[in-house]
C-alpha cells in the first residue's frame, strides 16, 4: 500500500528540501512554518498489464461492444496514439502504446482486418523521429508498418488529409484527420499522465487542424479553466467535449483505450528524487552528492543530454477501454487516486522547482517560453478547487532559463521570443496582433510538415497557457534564470531563493506564508 501525499510544515528539525533547477537540483532551507507538498508514493502497478489490456478490450466500458465484435475482414481500421509529449520522462520499454497496440493488432489479425493504418496524433506538435516512434511502438510494430507507409503522423496542414465534420452548437469548427474520420473504426490509444489528458481531447485535439484547435487553444479558454486538471471546471475540456460529441454524432466510431501510470518516475540512480529528504538513506545521500557534484562540472549540453536519456520506470497502473466518456471517467479517478494531495488553504508564495523536461522539449532544449509554460501553465494548474497560491500572491520558479532554443524543433519560438515578447507580454494583445501571421506563415508550415518543428502557432499556445496564472498572481520571480531571458518575459530574476523571498515580501508583505510544491513526481494539489 503506497503512502498518500503529504503536507509537511517546516520546523527546526526539517532537513533542507530538494528543489529542481533544470538539469540539476538545489537544496533549500525554507523558513519555519513553510509548507512542503510531497506527492503520493507510486500506486501499485498492474501485475500483468498485457492480460489487463486484453480484459479491457474484451470488456469495454459504456455503450460499446467488445473490440473483437467491432473487427471484421474488409474494414478500415485506424489506430491513433499519443505522441512524444507523453509520458514524461519517456518510459522504459515496453511503452504502454506498444503493449496496447500489439494487443489490438493481434485481435485485428484474428478478425482478418488487413487495412490498418497507425497515426501519431500529434496535433500541432513536432513529428516524431523514427527512433522515437520505434521506442514508443516497439520494433515489431514499427517494422511491420513504417516501411509500407502505414505508420503516419497527423498533418494538420494537409487539406487533403483533413475533413470538416461540422460546427458545434457554439460555432466551433470540427476538422480532423480524414483517414481517422472515414475509417470504420478509430481506436485511440492514450497514456494519461495527468488528469487533463485523454477523453474527447484525444481525438478532438490530437487529430485536429489549426482551424479546429483555435476554438479552444486561446486566451479566453485558458483564462476560464479552473483548472485543466478538473474537467468539470475546464473550458478547454468543455469545448473538446462538445467537439467529441459532434465527432461521434458524425458517425466516427471511436474505441478509446486509456492507460494510467504510477509515479515511479526516476530510475534507481536517481532514487533520492522519489523520496522525502528525511528518509534518505546513506545511499540516497551519496547518490545525491555524486549527481550534484558531477552536474556542477558538466557542460550544459552534456547535462541536458544525460537527463534527456533518462527512461522512466513508471508502470501501467490501470487500463480501460470502450466508449470515450465512460472510459475517461474511470481513468480520471485513477489519476486522482495516484496524484491528489489534500491541501488546506492557499499561501502567499508558492515555489516551483522546475525540472529539465516538459511535454514539448523531449530530446530538446527547455527554452524560456517552455520554462514559463511549465511553471505558469502546467505546475500552476496542477490543482483542483483553487490555486495553491492566493490571488495577488507570488510564484517563485527555480530554473536556469537559458536564452537557448532548438532551431529544428522550435523555430517559431525563436521568432516569438525575439519579436513578439519584445513588443508585449500580454496574452490578449499577442493573440490579437500576432497569432494569425505566425499560424499561417508558409515557412513554419513547411518546417512543421517536412522537418521536426512545432507548428508556427505553438509558442502562442504556450504563452496562453500562462494566462490564468498571469491573471491570478501579482509577481513571478525566477531564481537563477538568465537575466535577459527572464526580463524579456516580463518576470523578475533573483540570484538565490533567499533573495526571491525578500523580493516577494515587497509584493505580499512581511512574513508571507510559503508552500514548496515538491514535484516531480507528479501530483495535483486538492486545495480546500
Amino acid at each position, binding site marked *: 500500500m503506497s503512502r498518500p501525499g503529504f503536507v509537511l510544515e517546516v520546523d527546526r528539525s526539517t532537513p533542507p528540501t530538494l528543489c529542481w533547477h533544470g538539469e540539476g537540483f538545489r537544496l533549500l532551507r525554507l523558513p519555519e512554518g513553510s509548507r512542503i507538498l510531497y506527492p503520493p508514493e507510486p500506486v501499485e502497478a498492474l501485475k500483468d498489464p498485457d492480460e489487463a489490456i486484453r480484459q479491457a478490450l474484451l470488456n469495454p466500458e459504456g455503450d460499446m461492444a467488445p473490440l473483437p465484435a467491432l473487427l471484421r475482414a474488409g474494414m478500415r481500421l485506424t489506430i491513433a496514439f499519443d505522441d512524444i509529449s507523453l509520458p514524461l520522462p519517456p518510459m522504459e520499454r515496453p511503452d504502454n502504446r506498444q503493449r496496447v497496440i500489439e494487443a489490438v493488432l493481434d485481435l485485428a489479425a484474428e478478425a482478418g482486418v488487413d487495412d490498418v493504418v497507425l497515426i501519431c496524433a500529434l496535433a500541432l506538435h513536432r513529428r516524431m523521429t523514427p527512433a522515437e516512434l520505434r521506442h514508443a511502438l516497439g520494433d515489431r510494430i514499427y517494422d511491420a508498418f513504417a516501411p509500407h507507409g502505414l505508420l503516419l503522423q497527423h498533418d494538420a496542414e494537409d487539406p487533403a488529409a483533413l475533413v470538416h465534420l461540422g460546427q458545434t452548437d457554439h460555432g466551433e469548427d470540427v476538422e480532423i484527420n480524414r483517414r481517422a474520420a472515414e475509417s470504420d473504426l478509430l481506436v485511440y490509444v492514450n497514456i494519461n499522465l495527468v488528469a487533463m489528458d485523454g477523453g474527447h481531447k484525444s481525438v478532438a485535439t490530437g487529430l485536429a487542424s489549426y482551424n479546429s484547435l483555435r476554438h479552444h487553444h486561446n486566451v479566453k479558454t485558458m483564462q476560464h479553466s479552473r483548472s485543466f486538471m478538473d474537467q468539470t471546471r475546464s473550458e478547454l475540456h468543455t469545448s473538446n467535449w462538445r467537439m467529441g460529441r459532434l465527432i461521434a454524432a458524425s458517425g466516427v466510431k471511436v474505441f478509446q483505450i486509456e492507460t494510467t501510470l504510477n509515479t515511479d518516475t526516476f530510475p534507481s540512480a536517481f532514487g533520492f528524487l522519489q523520496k522525502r529528504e528525511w528518509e534518505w538513506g546513506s545511499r540516497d545521500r551519496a547518490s545525491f552528492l555524486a549527481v550534484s557534484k558531477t552536474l556542477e562540472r558538466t557542460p550544459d549540453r552534456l547535462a541536458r543530454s544525460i537527463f534527456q536519456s533518462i527512461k522512466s520506470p513508471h508502470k501501467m497502473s490501470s487500463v480501460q477501454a470502450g466508449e470515450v466518456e465512460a472510459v475517461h471517467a474511470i481513468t480520471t479517478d485513477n489519476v486522482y487516486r495516484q496524484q491528489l494531495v489534500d491541501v488546506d488553504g492557499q499561501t502567499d508564495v508558492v515555489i516551483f522547482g522546475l525540472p529539465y523536461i516538459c511535454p514539448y522539449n523531449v530530446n530538446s532544449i527547455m527554452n524560456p517560453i517552455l520554462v514559463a509554460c511549465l511553471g505558469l501553465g502546467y505546475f500552476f494548474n496542477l490543482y483542483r478547487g483553487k490555486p495553491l497560491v492566493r490571488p495577488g500572491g507570488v510564484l517563485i520558479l527555480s530554473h536556469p532559463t537559458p536564452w537557448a532554443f532548438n532551431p529544428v524543433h522550435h523555430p517559431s519560438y*525563436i*521568432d516569438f521570443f*525575439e*519579436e513578439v515578447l519584445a513588443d508585449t507580454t500580454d496574452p490578449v494583445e499577442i493573440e490579437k496582433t500576432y497569432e494569425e*501571421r505566425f499560424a499561417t*506563415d508558409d*515557412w513554419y508550415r513547411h518546417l512543421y510538415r517536412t522537418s521536426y518543428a512545432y507548428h508556427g502557432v505553438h509558442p502562442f499556445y504556450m504563452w496562453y497557457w500562462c494566462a490564468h496564472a498571469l491573471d491570478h498572481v501579482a509577481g513571478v520571480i525566477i531564481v537563477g534564470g538568465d537575466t535577459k531571458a527572464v526580463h524579456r518575459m516580463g518576470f523578475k530574476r533573483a540570484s538565490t531563493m533567499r533573495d526571491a523571498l525578500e523580493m516577494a515580501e515587497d509584493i505580499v508583505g512581511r512574513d508571507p506564508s510559503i508552500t514548496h510544491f515538491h514535484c516531480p513526481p507528479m501530483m495535483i494539489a486538492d486545495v480546500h
Partner: protein
Amino acid sequence: MKALLFERSLPKFAAARVASEWRSGSGARVGPLRLTDVDEPGLPAPGWRRVRPRLSGICGSDLATIDGRASRYFEPLVSFPFVPGHEVVGELDDGARVVLEPVLRCAARGIDPPCPACAQGQTNRCRNLAFGHLKPGLQTGYCSLTGGGWGTALVAHDSQLHTVPDSFSDRAAVMVEPAACALHGALIGRGTAGHDTAVVIGAGTLGLCTVAALSRWRPDIASLVVVAKHAEQRRLAHDLADCTVVEPGELARAVRRRTGSLVLDSGQLTGGASLVFDCVGTSQSLASALAVVEPGGTVVLLGMPGEVKVDLTGLWQREVSITGAYAYGTELMVGPGTGTDAAALPRRTFDLSFDLVADAGLERLVSALYPLSRYREAIQHAAAAGRRGAIKVAFDLRSTKKFRTKEIHS
C-alpha cells in the same frame, strides 16, 4: 596653433595596425597621430576663409585611418602631413558660425570649368580631387594645405561653407555633415517601385542618421528593420523611427518574418528586403546584407568598406545591385514621397541635412566632448562608442585661447 597632425610614417602605420587588432582606437597611442604646434594654414587663393573649429567630430573613416586600417586606395587622394577632422562647426573671423562641407572639389581647387560631375552639383563625384592649386585631398581633413577640424584653425573655400542658423546649437551643427552622408545614401532607390521592407545594418552615427532620414524622406518604404548591437543604439533607433530593431543575429529571422520568405539551408532567404543599407562596411555586414536582400534588390554601402571578403555568387545569381553612397552633393527630389514643391528643384544635400538634424533632434547623438589634449581618450571612446553607450564623440575646441579671449571681451 595646436593641432593633431597625421604624418606619413610606415613604422607607425604598422604599429597602429598591429595595436588596433588588439583594441580598436589604439592607433592613437602608437600611430602617426600626435598633438603638436603647427603653423596656421595660409589662404590658398581668393575666396578662401579662415575657420576656427568649435566642435569637430570623430568619424569612422578617421578611426580607420588612425588605426592603419584604411584602404590604400586613398593614398593618392591624400597629402601628408594633414590635420584630420571633416565634421566641423566653426567660426569665421567675423564671428559667423559655419558648417563645413569638406569635399575639396573643382570650385575649391580653382578648376574652371568644373568637371561634369561638379557642374551637375554631384560634387562628391568630383574627378579632380588630386589636382588644381591644392595638393591631393578628397576632403578637408586629408589635405596638407587646408588644415582640418582637429586643429584650432583651418581654411575653407566659400563654396564649402554653410551658415548655421542661430537656432542651432553647436552639437546640432556638428551633426549636419554626418547626417548629410546618411541622407544622401538614404535617398538612393527613390522613384522606383515602393519598398515593403528596408533594412539598416548598423546603428552608430551613420546608421541612426540613416534611420532618421528614411523615416522622414522615404514614405515609399513600408517597413523598416534596424540592426543595432547595443542597448543605447536600440533605444535611439526606436526614438528616431517607427521601426523594428533587432540584434545582429536576429536579422535574417526578422526579415524572413516580414517578407514571408523561405530559408535555404545556408541561411539565405529566398525573398528578402528590397533595400538594404549597410552602415558598417565590414565583410560580415556585407554578407548579412546579401543574405537578406531580395532577388533584384539593392544594397547601399554607406559605411566605408575597405577591403572586404564576401561571396558574390548570390549577388550574381539573384541579380542584386550593390551601390556606394559617398558624401553628398545635390539631390534630385523626384519620385514618390517628395513634396510637390521639392520635386521641382534639385536641393543641396547639406540644405536637406539642416532640416533633418533639426526635425529629428540629431544633436542628441553627440554623446561626449573632449579637448584636443585628451585626444587619445577621445579616440578610444569613439572606437568603443557602441559598447560604452555613446554615439558621436567630438573634440571641443571652444576652450582654446581664441575663444577664451573672445568670451572675456564679450
